[in-house]
């Protein structure tokens, strides 16, 4: 009559006891944070959008700096690190000026765009790109663009002429023609041969002194910069330019080598980790419990069979199998979950649960049940399993981080679900790009921190639950 009421009461009692342990409180808070975080993520970025964003169709992330650490890093570095600045000739503002006028007597027009900005950062930008768009038709002719770079010092550098090869044309300022233009300007106006070490960006934003130019250690020149774009267009075509001066830092989590904001993967990693870890652990524990109970209760041939199968399972190498399956068949996250479960259900948990069942089988109340006619199945499900459930729960909770790390490890090895943005995947990308060698520590540390947080929360919870359930571990 009241077994469901009793069950609810026992959960409340357990919770009450849980909060009396510091580890329990901490674990619970951490888990709650994770759950809230996951729900928030799923609500704000639905799964298909997340996958699409992570795939990064076309130029989705082109305006993000590449491999940029998070913005808050500047508090540790102490410098005012440059953020990305965007200028668009379609949005006239104080920084943007555009005018166009036809050339009399021809079908040409001259379009004049000026970008003006103050550069006060302590460091060089990471990149500079210009994206031109023009609605010209191939028959009338492509526009010709001339770019002039004006530095605060007054240097006016002609960066060359460029032809738009298509209606959308991207000009990356790392290319050779720009390098040549910069080097020859320095040779002519400063009379020195600039060091090979100087990048284009350093030329564009650096303070020109003879010494610095030779040695290659230019300082950042702060002040007002002007970028002048003179374009000649044919016919009735118009021309627009979008200039991105890429910062060194981006957002709350930084970007990866494909310019993707890491926060997407960091956010989405949470529900994936939780769902994967909890589902794997729940299903595995549940199936293991049933197998162990059948094995321990019935004994004999069935017990023998199950135990031998379990022992074989325990000896087989789990991870290599998983890798094999993944290499041959490819895995998405759901298939991975099913495979992991299948490979785990005859695990070592069976041994300990079976021992428990064999003990409980001898309890007087089981004998009493047989005396009043309870069937074996009834005894297993209504008399034995409710008794073994409490000791199993801490194990269930403590097993979750194992599965979370497993998924991350597989992703790290490149064998996980390739389309899903997870923490493991981020570490995988970082590893493939040699992040630690190149100094992109944030790329590795951020997903690792999330993994550790998740593992810690379940470990603490499991630890506290174990103390509650196992009276021998209790403090007096």
């Amino acid at each position, binding site marked *: *009559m*009241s*077994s469901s009421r*009793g069950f609810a009461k026992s959960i409340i009692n357990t919770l009450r006891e849980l909060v009396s342990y510091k580890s329990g409180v901490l674990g619970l808070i951490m888990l709650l944070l994770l759950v809230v975080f996951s729900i928030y993520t799923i609500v704000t970025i639905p799964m298909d959008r997340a996958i699409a964003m992570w795939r990064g169709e076309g130029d989705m992330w082109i305006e993000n700096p590449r491999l940029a650490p998070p913005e808050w890093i500047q508090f540790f570095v102490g410098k005012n690190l440059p953020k990305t600045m965007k200028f668009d000739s379609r949005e006239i503002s104080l920084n943007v000026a555009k005018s166009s006028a036809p050339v009399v007597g021809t079908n040409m027009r001259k379009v004049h765009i000026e970008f003006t900005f103050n550069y006060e950062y302590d460091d060089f930008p990471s990149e500079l790109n210009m994206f031109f768009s023009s609605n010209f038709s191939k028959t009338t002719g492509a526009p010709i663009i001339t770019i002039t770079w004006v530095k605060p010092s007054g240097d006016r550098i002609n960066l060359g002429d460029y032809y738009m090869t298509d209606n959308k044309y991207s000009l990356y300022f790392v290319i050779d023609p720009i390098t040549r233009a910069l080097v020859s300007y320095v040779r002519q106006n400063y009379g020195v041969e600039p060091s090979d070490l100087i990048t284009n960006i350093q030329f564009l934003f650096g303070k020109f002194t003879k010494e610095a130019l030779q040695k290659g250690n230019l300082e950042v020149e702060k002040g007002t910069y002007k970028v002048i774009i003179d374009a000649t267009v044919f016919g009735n075509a118009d021309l627009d330019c979008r200039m991105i001066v890429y910062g060194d830092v981006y957002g709350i989590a930084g970007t990866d080598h494909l310019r993707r904001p890491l926060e997407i993967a960091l956010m989405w990693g949470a529900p994936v980790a939780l769902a994967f870890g909890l589902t794997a652990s729940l299903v595995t524990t549940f199936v293991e419990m049933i197998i162990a109970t059948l094995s321990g209760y019935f004994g004999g041939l069935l017990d023998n069979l199950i135990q031998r199968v379990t022992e074989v399972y325990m000896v087989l190498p789990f991870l290599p199998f998983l890798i094999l399956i993944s290499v041959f068949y490819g895995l998405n996250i759901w298939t991975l979950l099913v495979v992991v479960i299948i490979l785990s259900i005859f695990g070592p948990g069976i041994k300990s649960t079976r021992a428990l069942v064999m003990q409980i089988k001898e*309890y*007087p*109340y089981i*004998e*009493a*049940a*047989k*005396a*009043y*006619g*309870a*069937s074996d199945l*009834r005894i297993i499900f209504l*008399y034995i399993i*409710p*008794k073994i459930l409490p000791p199993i729960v801490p194990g269930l909770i403590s097993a979750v981080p194992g599965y979370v790390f497993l998924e991350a490890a597989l992703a790290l090895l490149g064998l996980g679900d390739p389309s899903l943005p997870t923490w493991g995947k981020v570490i995988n990308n970082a590893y493939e790009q040699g992040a630690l060698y190149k100094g992109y520590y944030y790329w590795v540390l951020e997903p690792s921190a999330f993994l550790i947080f998740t593992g810690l929360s379940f470990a603490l919870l499991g630890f506290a639950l174990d103390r509650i359930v196992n009276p021998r571990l209790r403090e007096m």
Partner: protein
Amino acid sequence: MSEDKVLLKAEDLKMWFEVRRGLFAEPIPLRAVDGVSFDLGVAEAVSVVGESGSGKTTLGKTILRLYKPTGGKLIFKGRDITTLDEKDLMWYKKETGLVQQDPYGAMPSFMTIYRILEEPLIIHKIGSKEEREEMVFKALEEVRLTPVEDFAFKYPHMLSGGQLQRVAIARALILRPSLVVADEPVSMLDASVRVEILTLMRELQEKRNISFIYITHDLSTTRYFSEKIFIMYAGHLIERGPTKSVLRNPLHPYTRALLSAIPDPDPENRKRFRDVPPGEPPSLINPPPGCRFAPRCPFATDKCKREEPPEIEVEKDHFVKCWLYAFWS
């Protein structure tokens, strides 16, 4: 005893267990119950007395068919139940009840008292939900656990040992059995509570005309509880008869030893030694040949050590298995 008054009949009942001494050794039998014969009447209360290792508990469980006898016959209400399979025994489970020694171990800790008492009814598909509720409450009343609403929704750990044993009795009786086996029902309870529980069991037994098998090692309680006594030693029923007869006139040397070993509260006890045989009961795996008590018996003869004695009726309904009474037959 006339046949229609016999509820349960045991004929040379044997319950042997296979014991394996080592990994590759041959299994050898543990002869827990080794040829026991008796009649149990309708509404008759019998005490089965023996020490640990005497086989009394195994006898009780075999009678309930928790074990399948390895030899002999067990006949209940005229039906041979010796070899019936589990599935054919559901009717017998309704006819019998069990009260165990450990009140806390005998109850599932995660069920309420109500649920515990309801279980047998549910299993045997008795009554509707409302009818079962009535039956459970009535059962609690019968064992004097009132107010019933209070006790019904408590969990076992909230009750005392004595109270839980009442629940066990209620559970054993709820299917209205004809036979109840109580295995050391009060030995884990406090002295002051024992009498209460034994009295309750006796009252219910008389009121409901139930046959009772009361298994105990405490001879002192038997006269308050049962009309007949069975004395067990090393798997054998060595003496049986009316309680008064056996206690007043113990025939078997073992029975005599038992009686002389039990102290009554007498201040003179400390001034004298008790005359008891040395040693301990034999192992049931390799029992000695002949009479099992011979190694300890002060009156043992060569014949006792060679041949197992037959059962001899010495006074009315008072039987003993001992060569000392051979000339009686």
